[in-house]
């Protein structure tokens, strides 16, 4: 039992961490730039953050071709690794960050007249993106905890970004409190795990679990505690309570990135941690036992079923579009967890592909809310009446996002669901598949309440029906999200391959 078997940081490893480094430097430069140009329109931090994200993104994309990816490129010894999984999520996070930065530039909530701290937002996004990337790369429980806390810390600030808004401040405080409690629970679980196995790195934990006699009850307690902490991050029932309030209270561009970024990062972390420590891998005979001692499939199936059903049923009753999308994002976590059922590659690949699709469609739906909020100063469903004829192109793109979230062809959301269903049915978990299928029908009802309001309902007498013109950047970003949402529903082979390779090239450290 060596507590400090951590290698001394080796600078030659750092070459694999260029995207993260670029984002961190960008964060500092953007902050300084903001201080220097205070009081003006925050052009400097905006440009710096776009530049940093684009640079980091091009390095991350170039990194896909690195031949060392399959074996994993270690950074700081066992703490962090850049492998297929990390490479996939790096690109996903940078894309989400960039889309959010661009859209925030046009958002009244972020850029409104009375804001004096406009520029910080762009710096914070960079920090958050970098921290999420580390979450996808951590392979040591210390790093796991630190990266989660780093994401949390930035998130608390961003949720409370509208300092003068009561709702925003309340959201931030709630986020901190819930975050602290669930982190504490998880940390306790992690420390127990360390006590059981004597290892900090995932590979060591697995080795200890496979070789030694395992106390089933203790392991169950540990796993439940760790799942609790991670469920908080991905907002799975029963650790979802923070989610609707915070999405509703935070500025909408922040809610948009919250609904995809930290969730995807949470899934990345869960995939790596549980797949590495519990799944039946090459040494299947020994490890099948671990997953069954704690009846992992049933545990996840129940969480998944409850999460999707709860999210959908509560979303039905919402009259605020933003809050409805918050509950819908809970429901989607339920769908995603289906892929987690047996920790098989097929299921995890389905999760990755779904996360990719989900990022596109959910960001799109939230951004539409941002764009409309600029004009109407409202997110109430009743105020959406007639939008289909006031801004037909944007509303049509919203229909694409909502139809995709529902999961109907020919949109990408359907393909994502199809893979998840296939993974579950392949293992003959019929009740879960049927429940999820019926949940999609429930989803249809509330997603299309928005469509109905926008296109079908006749506006009241005297209501404003003048055409709305959105910022050109908003049209562009929405189109950049909507077109792949449609195209990936018709031809997705290459992107599925990407997700498949990410799982195949995930170094598990056996």
């Amino acid at each position, binding site marked *: 039992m060596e507590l400090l078997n951590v290698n001394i940081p080796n600078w030659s490893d750092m070459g694999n961490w260029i995207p993260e480094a670029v984002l961190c430097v960008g964060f500092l430069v953007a902050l300084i730039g903001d201080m220097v140009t205070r009081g003006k329109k925050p052009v400097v931090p905006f440009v710096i953050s776009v530049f940093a994200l684009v640079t980091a993104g091009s390095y991350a994309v170039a990194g896909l071709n690195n031949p060392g990816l399959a074996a994993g490129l270690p950074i700081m010894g066992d703490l962090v690794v850049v492998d297929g999984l990390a490479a996939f999520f790096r690109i996903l996070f940078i894309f989400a960050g960039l889309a959010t930065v661009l859209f925030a530039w046009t958002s009244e909530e972020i850029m409104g007249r009375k804001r004096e701290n406009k520029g910080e937002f762009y710096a914070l996004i960079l920090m958050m993106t970098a921290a999420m990337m580390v979450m996808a790369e951590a392979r040591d429980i210390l790093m796991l905890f630190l990266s989660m806390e780093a994401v949390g810390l930035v998130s608390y600030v961003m949720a409370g970004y509208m300092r003068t808004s009561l709702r925003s401040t309340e959201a931030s405080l709630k986020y901190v409190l819930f975050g602290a409690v669930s982190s504490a629970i998880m940390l306790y679980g992690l420390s127990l795990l360390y006590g059981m196995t004597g290892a900090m790195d995932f590979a060591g934990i697995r080795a200890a679990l496979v070789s030694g006699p395992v106390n089933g009850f203790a392991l169950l307690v540990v796993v439940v505690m760790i799942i609790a902490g991670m469920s908080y991050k991905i907002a799975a029932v029963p650790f979802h309570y923070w989610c609707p309030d915070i999405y509703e209270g935070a500025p909408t561009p922040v809610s948009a990135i919250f609904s995809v970024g930290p969730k995807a990062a949470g899934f990345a972390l869960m995939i790596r941690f549980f797949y590495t420590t519990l799944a039946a891998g090459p040494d299947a005979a020994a490890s099948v036992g671990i997953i069954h001692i704690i009846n992992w499939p049933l545990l996840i199936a129940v969480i998944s079923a409850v999460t999707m059903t709860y999210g959908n049923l509560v979303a039905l009753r919402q009259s605020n579009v933003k809050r409805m999308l918050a509950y819908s994002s809970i429901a989607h976590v339920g769908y995603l967890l289906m892929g987690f059922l047996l920790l098989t590659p097929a299921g995890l690949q389905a999760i990755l592909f779904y996360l990719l699709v989900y990022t596109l469609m959910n960001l799109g739906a939230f951004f539409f809310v941002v764009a409309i909020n600029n004009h109407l100063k409202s997110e109430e469903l009743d105020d959406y009446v007639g939008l289909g004829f006031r801004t037909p192109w944007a509303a049509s793109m919203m229909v694409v996002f909502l139809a995709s979230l529902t999961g*109907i062809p*020919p949109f990408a959301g359907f393909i994502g669901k199809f893979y998840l*269903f296939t993974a579950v049915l*392949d293992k003959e978990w019929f009740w879960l598949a*049927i429940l999820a*299928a019926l949940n999609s*029908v429930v989803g249809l009802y509330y997603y*299309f309440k928005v469509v109905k309001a926008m296109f*079908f309902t006749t506006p009241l007498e005297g209501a404003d029906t003048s055409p709305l013109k959105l910022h050109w950047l908003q049209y562009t970003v929405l189109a950049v999200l909507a077109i792949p949402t449609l195209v990936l529903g018709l031809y997705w082979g290459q992107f*599925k391959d990407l997700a498949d390779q990410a799982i195949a090239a995930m170094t598990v450290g056996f």
Partner: protein
Amino acid sequence: MGEHILSWMTFFPVIGAAVIAFIPSERKEVIKTVAAAAAAVPLILAVQLFISFDRGSSAFQYVEHYTWIKAFNIEYFIGVDGLSVPMVLLTAFLSFLCIIASWKIDKAVKGYFALFLILEAGMMGVFVSLDFFLFYVFWEVMLLPMYFLIGIWGGPRREYAAIKFFLYTLAGSVLMLLAMIAFYLNVSDPVTGGHTFNMVHMFDQANHSDWLQLTNIRHILWIGLFIGFAIKVPIFPFHTWLPDAHVEAPTAVSVILAGVLLKMGTYGILRISYPMLPDQAIWFSFTLAVLGCINILYGAYCAMAQTDMKKLVAYSSVSHMGYVLLGMSAMTSAGINGAVFQMFNHGTITAMMFLCVGVVYDRAHTREINGFGGLGLQMPLYFSVFSFALFAALGLPGLSGFVSEAMIFMGVFPVYRTVAIISALGIVIGAAYVLWMLQRVFLGPKNEKWDNLPDINTREMFTLVPIGIVVLLLGIYPMPVLDLMKVTLNNLIKVVAG
């Protein structure tokens, strides 16, 4: 185009829709003309298909087979046989006429015609797909345009009707999706040994895994597929979306809904359920006959009670689709040929009825049967056309509906005698509601309120007369359509019933 005739038929309307998206919305006449042209091309190709289709073969023709998503063995695999050709013809024919019938649409013209063309593509795709995944995608693709067509251009309760239609259909299709995945995971490609969505492989029982041979599993899969299709038909008790959707939908959409969409349900049963689960088709056949009988009688009684013309026609659809189910259940040559022929005939006859209701609604802005009276004098030409359609609906000999219904009863009688006798009552009730409506609307004392109603105009006649000619010709000489499907359907019977 010869090689890819089916692809052109399916995707030419999409091209039309894309072109329409770029025409400025003030140029309404241009939009309508482009839409008519985009729908005319599939119609011309349909005529070519009708001429060149090899009637002596039960194999799939005009097959196009390409890899779509390699990793999951999803293919772009299309083709037609005697079961799908009549449906393809019907779709091309009615879609074109409906575009013409929609000429008076004035609200958001661009959206209407673009969506209509996408709807046509979706329907066509369903009838030509031979890959289950592709089939499912097309099946769902038409939901969205249909939802918008009812929801934006529909009547007063359109919001309710649109979402009800959408929810019902989606609930059915998710069950179909699960069944589809179960098939995918348990059918192996005889060449590569991998999973496959290829329907032709799924038809061959030798490719089914052991799991798929279990009786209970086959029951569950049959029921899953059946509910998906039954909602579309619609079969009692899943029919309640239909009257709402029909009443609220604009005329042309009602025509498509009744004329083509309902057929997709029975087509799905014959194309997918029967050959993939033939033993279950036999197991279920008596239930199907009873469900058909319920549809016939229940639909007819409901139709009799209606005071809204459109609702009456909607319920008559429920009743007429019951004959299709009855014919399918018998597993005899006459029964199944009659059933598919009835699908075609119901498409044409109901289309005429809905178009006729649309004509009077456009003028009077009401469809209350009891609000009219003596219209026969006011609109003599209209009277004669509508009477023709109604007589066709009640199965008057000499018109096409009679032939198919007679074939169905000939097919069913030896197999399920009691059910057939009870179902035959439906013909009597059918005559009753049709004649009673005719009497209340066109005969009797003239309601002075309608003194200024103009008679049917040339454009409307242009949509009705071609259908009328088809109904009449097939009533006298049904062989052109029966020849198309005979070989395929007799082969299907052989596969199912042995």
